[in-house]
């Protein structure tokens, strides 16, 4: 143990349980199916189940919403819509003072795919989902914007008119003298990076049971919510009740969160209101499609970062321009993702001059929130890509650039340019140890060897400072100093813990840390056992939180890696406080001074005369049974609750300096990757991760946090993306589309440690849970950039992207082969194609058939009716499907540019329970020498809703299938059939299967063919 470690107490000199990898007390129940997760908890027989109707559109006006048929269905108790929500509640508070209103449900319009539109409450979830299908809703689609840079353009669709655009916040900061530094530096080296959207989706989804008590006008909510409990105030305000009438409870077990289970609070408001409307408790278990589509996501961010650099690689200034995309609403606590790292924008480097511009933009995507790493991945992706680029640009070894810039070991506590106070560290020692023990030299040799043999191999580094224990005041940095002064100071990070004795000496601990699987109960038992000289198994830890009974604060919850540093430390303080009182009690009984007592082996004894002892249980009993014998000064000795907040977490200063976090761990990652040339697959060959997380309380759990975070980060680097189509369609709605790595994709990292305990926390520990989510994505990216010798790497590094980066010429198509389908244009429609068909019938005949509702009704597969709205507008009801997939759609088609019988433009939109479609097609007819017709077409379409979210892999094929089928039918109807194998599309022969077309495709079909006339 290091000398810098704070002495826990004078009487616990013996090595204790902390620091050892005890088996977890949580495990026996979890391993035998006796967990108590939200959906396992008993509920009363009156409890109803809810399902949410969600928007298939990224941006649309709600033209009509009729829930009467759904309400009338058997088993349905209530349907909640925005009307009830607006009548019974207030909008959710918005993080910055921006003129925008944020309801938990769409009011007049939807702004992202998955936004709640109505809630059905029924006897069971099956019935509730049945009722969703009975809700009649019409949307008028609006143009959507998904790209944060485009969202700033003058012509971009505006999400919240009050903002006058899509920019919700724009702040600039200046520390030191960045202009002068850039002016005098030998080089200005810059990089622009785009960090994508993803989230560490937990395997257990959101879940809650909500209840309303009309007698007390109070709500009771049990949810697998993770905190922070500052959100409790947001929920209570929205429900228009004082905080003491919102009782929020968490279950004992939670199936992971990683920040994500902060994002459920808007649904808590909805379900609480649904319970009120139904007059019965309402339970809601989110399904995976809902979770991926609309729970919460990390922010995507565009960063332009420049450094002033001396010839030797010394960085003298950084200039950050961060454009943060928070999705459709600025939900509390956003824009926290952007400001969480504000004190750490210089990373592990000693850089005194700093310029920052932070902009927050809204787009038609799911609103963002907490996610493991929270702001770190975005910041370090830019910073560490830049450090690598500096090395490449200046022809230096990346290690040399890192070494040249690291904060010196003697400089701690170190104040960063933007106000962060780094508690402790020895970055040089960590770096050199990592290089030596991590086998860096051998890795370089391997790279040289592989390259010499013609292979692709790269090495990447990431140097990261991992903040933990957030300052509750950091988000207020988004406000100007004047605004902050007006609003009042915000700071600190209250942690609480209670240690209590029962009459026979049992010790229980209560905390508000809301564990999500990390093993808090075990570590707390170790901590308190060490203080009281007991065995951990004797300590009972209760971690389910009940805001009506337990000690908590707005900082409570499971986030910002605050457990080991703050909560365990606070439990230690509470145990020590109780111990001090018990010591006085024992002192009176044993006749020795309290200072001379030792708590050990379940006894309290005099240090020098161990026989002079009293069993711990007896002492505890005295506190209960004979309180009169307790010395005056000790007061009660039954229960101690400690609130602890670190003095270092002060409010932002008038010049915008902020110590955004209390603790700062250090990570140095070294990554070796091989890239398979033929496939573009990235194979992580070796991964070394060096950590300094202060004092390690439980090595097994620390390792668990590191490898777990690493696996999440491998996902972010290579597999996972919350992908959106250009029209805002969500494309990653299933676990077959959102690719969470399996064991085959996650190598085992080699973990190294150095320990510099934090002087700011009671136990010397720092957070460790999020670091690899910050370091690993960029370490892998740097390695791939090194392997390929490229700069512009975009995550996730999919085989297709890597293959494109290789930029190798392709063997050309042999003569006679149809040209490749045009590659997708950025910003273009999701589906596009061209093709042609030949018919024996002449053009006029084809034209007439195409534009005649009656014949179309007959030939469009699954067509129920075609209604003529005007000469050029038609409405069709169609059931379409591919294989087992079938859905009913209404399709509106408008014809324009009619040149009979030669060409027509069709604009169509389709909507149904399974999805939506919109697009445009052009059809041209020409007579052939044999008297038949050649028809050429092209189309562009977007598909949204469920089919896009879960069926993206098959959509193109389905579109072609629909088109092929239609033309085959057209040929039959017009007489003479199709010629030459029917339609072709983009060069491939279309299938003419027996089944009808698939779902949302419909749109395309009709637009193409022109249901109409």
């Amino acid at each position: 143990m290091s000398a810098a470690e704070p002495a826990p107490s004078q009487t616990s000199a013996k090595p204790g349980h902390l620091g050892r990898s005890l088996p977890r007390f949580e495990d026996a129940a979890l391993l035998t199916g006796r967990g108590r997760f939200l959906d396992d908890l008993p509920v009363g027989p009156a409890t109803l189940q809810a399902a949410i109707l969600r928007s298939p559109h990224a941006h649309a006006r709600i033209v009509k919403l009729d829930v009467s048929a759904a309400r009338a269905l058997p088993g349905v108790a209530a349907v909640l819509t925005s009307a009830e929500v607006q009548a019974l509640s207030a909008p959710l508070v918005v993080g910055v003072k921006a003129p925008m209103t944020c309801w938990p449900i769409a009011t007049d319009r939807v702004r992202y795919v998955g936004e709640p539109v109505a809630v059905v409450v029924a006897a069971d979830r099956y019935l509730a989902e049945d009722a969703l299908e009975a809700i009649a809703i019409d949307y008028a689609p609006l143009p959507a914007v998904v790209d944060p840079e485009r969202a700033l353009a003058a012509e971009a669709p505006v999400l919240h008119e009050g903002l006058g655009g899509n920019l919700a916040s724009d702040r600039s900061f200046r520390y030191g003298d960045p202009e002068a530094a850039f002016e005098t530096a030998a080089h200005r080296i810059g990089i622009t990076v785009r960090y994508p959207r993803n989230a560490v989706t937990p395997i257990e989804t959101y879940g809650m049971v909500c209840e309303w008590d009309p007698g007390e006008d109070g709500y009771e909510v049990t949810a697998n919510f993770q905190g922070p409990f500052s959100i409790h105030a947001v929920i209570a305000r929205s429900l228009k009740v004082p905080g003491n009438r919102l009782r929020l409870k968490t279950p004992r077990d939670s199936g992971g969160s990683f920040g994500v289970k902060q994002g459920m609070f808007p649904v808590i408001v909805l379900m609480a209101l649904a319970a009120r409307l139904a007059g019965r408790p309402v339970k809601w278990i989110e399904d995976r499609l809902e979770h991926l589509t609309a729970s919460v996501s990390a922010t995507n961010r565009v960063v332009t970062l420049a450094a002033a650099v001396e010839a030797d690689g010394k960085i003298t200034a950084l200039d950050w321009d961060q454009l943060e995309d928070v999705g459709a609403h600025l939900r509390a606590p956003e824009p926290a993702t952007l400001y969480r790292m504000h004190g750490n924008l210089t990373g592990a480097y000693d850089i005194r001059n700093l310029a920052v511009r932070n902009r927050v933009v809204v787009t038609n995507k799911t609103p963002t929130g907490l996610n493991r790493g929270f702001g770190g991945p975005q910041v370090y992706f830019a910073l560490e890509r830049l450090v690598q680029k500096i090395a490449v640009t200046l022809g230096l070894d990346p290690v040399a650039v890192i070494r040249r810039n690291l904060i010196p070991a003697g400089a701690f506590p170190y104040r960063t340019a933007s106000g962060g106070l780094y508690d402790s560290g020895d970055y040089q020692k960590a770096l050199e140890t990592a290089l030596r023990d991590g086998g860096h030299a051998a890795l370089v040799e391997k790279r040289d060897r592989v390259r010499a043999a013609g292979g692709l191999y790269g090495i990447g580094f990431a140097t990261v400072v991992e903040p933990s224990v957030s300052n509750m005041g950091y988000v207020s940095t988004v406000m100007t100093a004047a605004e902050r002064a007006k609003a009042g100071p915000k700071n600190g990070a209250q942690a609480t813990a209670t240690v209590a004795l029962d009459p026979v000496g049992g010790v229980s601990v209560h905390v508000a840390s809301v564990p999500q699987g990390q093993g808090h109960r075990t570590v707390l038992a170790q901590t308190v056992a060490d203080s009281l000289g007991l065995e951990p198994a004797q300590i009972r830890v209760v971690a389910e939180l009940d805001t009506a009974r337990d000690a908590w604060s707005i900082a409570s919850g499971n986030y910002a890696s605050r457990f080991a540093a703050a909560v365990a430390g606070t439990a230690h303080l509470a145990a020590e406080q109780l111990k001090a009182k018990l010591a006085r009690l024992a002192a009176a009984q044993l006749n020795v001074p309290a200072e001379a007592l030792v708590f050990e082996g379940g006894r309290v004894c005099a240090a020098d005369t161990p026989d002079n002892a009293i069993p711990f249980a007896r002492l505890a009993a005295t506190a209960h049974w004979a309180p009169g014998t307790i010395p005056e000064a000790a007061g009660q000795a039954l229960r101690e609750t400690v609130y602890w907040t670190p003095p270092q977490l002060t409010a932002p200063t008038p010049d915008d300096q902020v110590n955004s976090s209390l603790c700062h761990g250090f990570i140095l990652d070294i990554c070796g990757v091989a890239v398979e040339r033929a496939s573009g697959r990235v194979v992580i060959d070796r991964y070394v991760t060096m950590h300094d997380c202060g004092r390690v309380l439980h090595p097994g759990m620390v390792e668990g946090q590191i490898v777990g975070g690493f696996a999440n980060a491998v996902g972010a680097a290579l597999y996972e993306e919350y992908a959106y189509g250009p029209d805002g369609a969500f494309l990653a709605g299933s676990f077959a589309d959102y690719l969470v790595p399996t064991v085959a994709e996650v190598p085992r990292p080699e973990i190294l440690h150095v320990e510099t305990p934090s002087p700011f926390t009671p136990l010397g520990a720092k957070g460790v849970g999020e670091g690899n989510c910050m370091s690993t994505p960029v370490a892998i990216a740097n390695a791939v950039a090194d392997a390929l010798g490229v700069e512009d790497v975009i995550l996730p590094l999919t085989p297709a992207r890597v293959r494109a980066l290789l930029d190798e010429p392709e063997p050309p198509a042999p003569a006679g082969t149809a040209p490749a389908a045009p590659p997708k244009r950025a910003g273009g429609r999701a589906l596009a194609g061209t093709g042609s068909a030949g018919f024996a019938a002449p053009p006029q005949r084809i034209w007439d058939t195409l534009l005649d509702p009656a014949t179309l009704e007959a030939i469009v597969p699954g067509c129920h009716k075609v209604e003529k709205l005007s000469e050029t507008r038609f409405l069709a009801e169609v059931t379409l499907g591919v294989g087992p997939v079938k859905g009913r759609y209404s399709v509106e088609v408008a014809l324009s540019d009619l040149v009979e019988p030669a060409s027509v433009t069709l604009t169509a939109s389709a909507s149904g329970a399974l999805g939506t479609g919109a697009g445009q097609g052009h059809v041209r007819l020409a007579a052939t020498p044999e008297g038949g017709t050649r028809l050429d077409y092209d189309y562009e379409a977007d598909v949204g809703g469920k089919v896009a979210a879960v069926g993206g892999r098959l959509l193109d094929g389905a579109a072609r299938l629909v088109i092929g089928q239609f033309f085959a039918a057209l040929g039959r109807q017009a007489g003479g059939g199709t010629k030459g194998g029917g339609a072709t599309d983009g060069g491939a022969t279309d299938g003419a299967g027996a089944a009808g077309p698939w779902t949302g495709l419909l749109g395309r079909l009709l637009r193409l063919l022109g249901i109409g006339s």
Partner: protein
Amino acid sequence: MKPARFDYQRAESAAEACEALAELGGDARVLAGGQSLVPMLNMRLAQPRLLVDISRIEALQKIERSGGRLLVGAGARQAALLSHDGLAEAAPLLAAALPWVGHAQTRARGTVCGSLAHADPSAELPTCLLALQGAVRLRSSRRHRELPAEAFLAGLMSTAREDDELVEAAAFPLRRAGEGQAFREFGRRHGDFAIVGAAAVVSAQRIRLAVGGVADRPMARDWPALEGSALDDALNAFAWELGARDDLHASARLRRDLVRALGREAIEEARRCRA
């Protein structure tokens, strides 16, 4: 994510199943292993009126060799085929491809015929059936018939099965003397649907290569015993003819690259196996 309502009938015999299909046609769906159908039910992408469960019909669970072919009944699970005695010698392509079909947990329930009937363009088993020039036996109350793979696999999740027909069995030709077979696949993660899957069957005189994951159904080409650049050219032409498209998981270019690369690897390995 809960299914819409449907009736359920556990058929005791193939005849009973066919009667039910004849009665409801396209509104009925056959439930065998459920590994493709039930996700679609849960997402309500499919809403049939009736599920006809054939998983307990013993007669349909057989895997047997007959007439130089391996006959796999409609109820036979993928795991049962994978552990079928002597599979690696009798049908090495299937032995190589089956581990790529989903995961152990889905193979334990999923059926061979179910995968063929589902006709996902990326699925391994249809690609193998096509490579081996196997066939599918269809049965209805009206008739029995057998369709070769080319005729059965009609397009994206589309087959030549009529609504009243049950896929009763699949017939995979046994490996002939002097024939080599090999399978290669590239997916984003192990167990995912193939971005490209390649099945090669090679004899002294000819090469047959089937590729899944690119066009709307698996496609095959037959070549004489090409070598070197002639084989490269043939593979390149095939790669282009498949009309690859971009999607969320891969680009058209990557798919063509993989057809060229995996096609060659599969052919070369099949040649080695032949030797």
